[in-house]
C-alpha cells in the first residue's frame, strides 16, 4: 500500500501523517502544485492551516492543482482520508457532505478525546469494530460539524457517520456529536481528531494507527 500525503503551504501535520502511514505501508509527500498522484493507492489530506485558513478554513486549498487529481481519484473509488484541515478541504471540495464551523467556544482547543466507532465498514475503519472506543487527540478552532437536519438524517440512515465523540468528549458543538463522516461509497473519510498523533505509545495512544491499518489491509 502506497500512501500519498499532500503538502500545501501552511500544512502542519503532513510529516506526522507521513510517519503514521509509513508504519503500515509506503508513504510519500505530494506537492500541491503538481498534477500527479505518483501512483499512490491512498491519499491523505493532512491537518494544518493551508493558506493560513484565510477566507475560510480549507476554502483556498481545494483550488490547488493537485486537488483536481484527488477529486478524480476519489470519484473513481480511490481511498482518501482528510484529517482536520484536510476534512475541511474535502468538505469545501464537495467530496464529503456538510461543513465545519467555528467551535461554539470560539477558541482553539487541544485535548485527548474518546471516539466511538459508528461505522466499521468504511475503507478507513475496517480494522475496527462497531462500538470500539479510540483515544485520539483533537486540536482545532473550526471543527463543529454541521449539516442541515435532513442531510444529517440521511447520513445516519446511510451509515455515513463514521465516528462520534463519546459522551462527554464533544467540545466543539458538532451536530449529533459527529467526529467523522464518509461519502456514500465509504472510500472518502474526513475526521477532525488526529489519528496520526496517536500511533506511538510514548505520545499517549496507538489507537489512531487502526485507521491507517484499515486502509493498508485493503492492499492486494
Amino acid at each position: 500500500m502506497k500512501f500519498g500525503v499532500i503538502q500545501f503551504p501552511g500544512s502542519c501535520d503532513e510529516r506526522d501523517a507521513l510517519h503514521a502511514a509509513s508504519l503500515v505501508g509506503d508513504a510519500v509527500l505530494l506537492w500541491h502544485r503538481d498534477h500527479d498522484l505518483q501512483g499512490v493507492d491512498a491519499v491523505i489530506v493532512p491537518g494544518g492551516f493551508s493558506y493560513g485558513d484565510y477566507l475560510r478554513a480549507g476554502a483556498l486549498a481545494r483550488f490547488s492543482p493537485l486537488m483536481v487529481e484527488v477529486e478524480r481519484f476519489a470519484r473513481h473509488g480511490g481511498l482518501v482520508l482528510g484529517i482536520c484541515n484536510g476534512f475541511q478541504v474535502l468538505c469545501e471540495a464537495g467530496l464529503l457532505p456538510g461543513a465545519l464551523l467555528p467551535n461554539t467556544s470560539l477558541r482553539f482547543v487541544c485535548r485527548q478525546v474518546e471516539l466511538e466507532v459508528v461505522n466499521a465498514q468504511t475503507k478507513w475503519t475496517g480494522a475496527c469494530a462497531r462500538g470500539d472506543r479510540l483515544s485520539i487527540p483533537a486540536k482545532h478552532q473550526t471543527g463543529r460539524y454541521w449539516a442541515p437536519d435532513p442531510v444529517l438524517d440521511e447520513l445516519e440512515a446511510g451509515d455515513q457517520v463514521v465516528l462520534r465523540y463519546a459522551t462527554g468528549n464533544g467540545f466543539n458543538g458538532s451536530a449529533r456529536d459527529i467526529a467523522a463522516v464518509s461519502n456514500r461509497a465509504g472510500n472518502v473519510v474526513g475526521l477532525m481528531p488526529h489519528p496520526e498523533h496517536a500511533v506511538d505509545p510514548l505520545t499517549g495512544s496507538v489507537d489512531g494507527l487502526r485507521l491507517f491499518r484499515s486502509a493498508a489491509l485493503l492492499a492486494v
Partner: protein
Amino acid sequence: MSRHAELGLTDPEFERIVALMGRELNEVELAVFSLMWSEHCGYKHSRKLLSTLPTEGPRVVMGPGENAGAVDLGGGIACAFKVESHNHPSAVEPFQGAATGVGGILRDVFAVGARPIAILDSLRFGEPGESPRARYLLDRAVAGIGHYGNSIGVATVGGEIYFEPAYEQNCLVNAMCIGLIETEKLIRSAAAGVGNVVVLFGARTGRDGIGGASVLASAELGDASEAKRPTVQIGDPFEEAKLLECSLELLDAELLVALQDLGAAGLTSASAEMAAKGGVGLDLDVARVPLREPGMEPFEIMISESQERMLCVVAPERFEAVMAVCEKWEVNATAVGAVTDSGRLRVLVGNDLVGDLPVAALVDECPVYELEPARPSIPLYPAPSRALADGTAPGETLLALLGSANLASRRPVFEQYDCLVGSRTARRPAQADAAVLMLAAEGAPRPALGVSIDGNGRRVACDPYRGAIEAVLECSANLACVGAEPLGLTNCLNFGNPEKPHIAWQLTRAVAGLGDACRALGVPVVGGNVSLYNEGGDGPILPTPVVGMVGELPDAARAGGLGFAQAGDTVALISARGWAPSLNGSELAKLRGAAPEGELPPADLGELRAVHAAIRQAVRSGALRSAHDVAEGGLAVALAECCVAGGLGAALDLGCAPADARDAEALLFGEGPGAFVVSGVRAAFAAFGAAAAVLGTVGGEALRLDGSHGRLEVGVAELSGVHAGGLATLLARA
C-alpha cells in the same frame, strides 16, 4: 524637543555620533544610529553584566551573539534555543504583541538553520481577580500565542503564568523556541564575499512597527502608550510558515552564505549586524524593497519592523537557484544590495546615496554605561490586597492556595495551544514538571529533551540574588523530575529602568545570582535577551529574570510524571540538607496581603546539584512512579498537585519530615529550594539515603496529612475542582 531626542538619543550620545561621523547626519542616518544605539539593540546598560555570565561548556556549539545559541546533543544533532521578550508591544496590543513575539523567536531559531520543534511562554499580568485589564491582556495574549504557534505548526509545550499587581500596566510576554539541526549545518549571520548578493525575502515592507525598538522597547510605558499602537507589528503566521520552509530548503540545498532574521529595528539592525560580524560593508538599494504602500521614505524602509522577513547573502552564481526555491514556496524575494569591502553601510535609492554609515561605529562604538546600583532604602512594592485571613485551618488554606490565580490549573490556557504537532511530545503540560520532546519517531531507547521555563518575580523582589538563583534551580529541578540533565540555558532579564539606582541594584544582584547558579550547576548560558524600562505610571515591575533550560534524557519511555500513579505506592519526601522552607515571599504570604519582602532561605548549590542528580538518576532508572518538585505553595500544594494529577489520594504523616522549618505552617506552605515529592515502591528510596523521609502511602479518595498542624484532610474531588476552577473562572470573565 530635538529630533535626536525624539528618537531616544541623549545629547552626549548625539554629540558622539556627530564626532564619529565628522559631519551632521541626515534623517536616514540619524534613524539608523538611533536604533543601533537603542537599549534594545545596543545593550547599553546590560552588556557589562552579561559578560559576567558563564557561556562556555563542552556541549556548547554556538554561544551568545548569534540569532540563537545551540548545544550538542550527540549523533551530529544540535539543539538551538533562545528566549526573547515582547513585553511593551503586548502591553499596548496583546494579541498582535504576543503573536509577533512568537513569530520573532521562531525566526531567530530558523535563522541558524534549525527546524523549530517547540515553544514555551512565560507570562506576567496584573491581578486578574481585581483588574479587568489583566484579564483582557491574559485572554488576548494567550489567543495571540495560540494563533501564531498553532497556525505555523510548532508545538507549544510548556510555560508559566503569574499574576502580581506590579505587572498591571506593564505585562510580560516572553517566548522561548527550541529547534533541531544537524550540527554541521548551523549557519551564522556574518556577511561575507565581496560582490555577493544581498536578498530580502518574505513579507513586503510596510509602515507597521516603525520605532518599535527605540520608542517602545527602550523607554518606560506612559500615558501616551495608547498612541503607540501603530508601533506594534502585525503578525501573519501563514507568511512565516512559508518563510520557514523556504529558509530551511535554501539552507538544506547549501545555497546561502549567511542568514539573518529581521526583528527589532528591521533592515537596519539585520544589515548592520551581518556586516559587522563579517567585517564587510553592505550597499542596500531601498528602492528595490517591495513595499506594502507607496510613498514610504527611505528611513521608514530602513526602520520598519514589518514581520516575516529574512535577509540572506548569496553568491551570484546561486542567485537563480535561490529565487526558484522562493518561487516554489510563494515567497517574495528581491536582490536589494551587495556585499562590499568598504566597511560601510550605504543606503541608496537607485543611484542616489541617501545614507553612508560606518558599520563599526554603529555596532561597536555604541556607548556602554556603568550602572550605579544602590540598594533601595524603602520598600519598592506595595502590599497586595489580602485574600485570606490569618489563622485559617490548614485544609482551608490549602484550598485557597490551589484555587488562587497563581497556582490554579493552567488547563484553560494550555488547551488553547497545539502541544502535539511534530509527534515528539512525550510529556504534555500538566503531566510532568517539564515537557519532554523525543528526538526521533521510532527506536528504543528513545533519546529526548526535557525543557522548562521559570522565574518568580516576587522572590526576586525579596532578594534579587537568591531569587535569581532559585529560578535556575527551579528549572534544573523540573528537568530532574523527568530525568533530564541540563545542557544549557537561555535567559530573559525583565527589569525596570536601569538608570534608577534601585533597579540597577536588582539587575546587578540578579545577574550575579544567575552566574553563580549556572557555574555551580555547570550549565552554560548560550543566549538570551534583556528587556529593560518595564515601568508604568505605578512604578517598576517585579524584577523578573526568566530562565529557560534544555536538558537531555536517554529514554523517553522512562520520562517522569508528576501524578501519583498507583494505589499502594509509598510516598517520600526527598530533601536537601538544610532545606528550610519559609513563608517569606511565598504564595501564602501573598494571599495574606504581605508585600514581597523578607529574607529567602540560602541555597547550598553543591548540595542541591547532588540532590537534583539523585532525583534524575532515580527517574532514569525507572525506580520511581512519580516525581514532583516542591515549589510555589510549598509541600502541601505539591502533594495536592500529585493527587490531582493522578486522581488518587494519599495518607501521609509529616512527623519525620526533616525540614528546618520554623513551625508547622512553614513546613506545609513555606517555600525554599531543595525538596521533592516522589512515589514508588519503598525499596526505590534506598538510593537517596538520609535525604529520603517516608511520608505514607498512595490511595483512597482524599489527601490526608497528619503532623504538628493536626490533621488536614480534603477529598481529591474537591482539590481537583478548586484547582480546575481558579483560572477558568477568571478567564470566563475576560
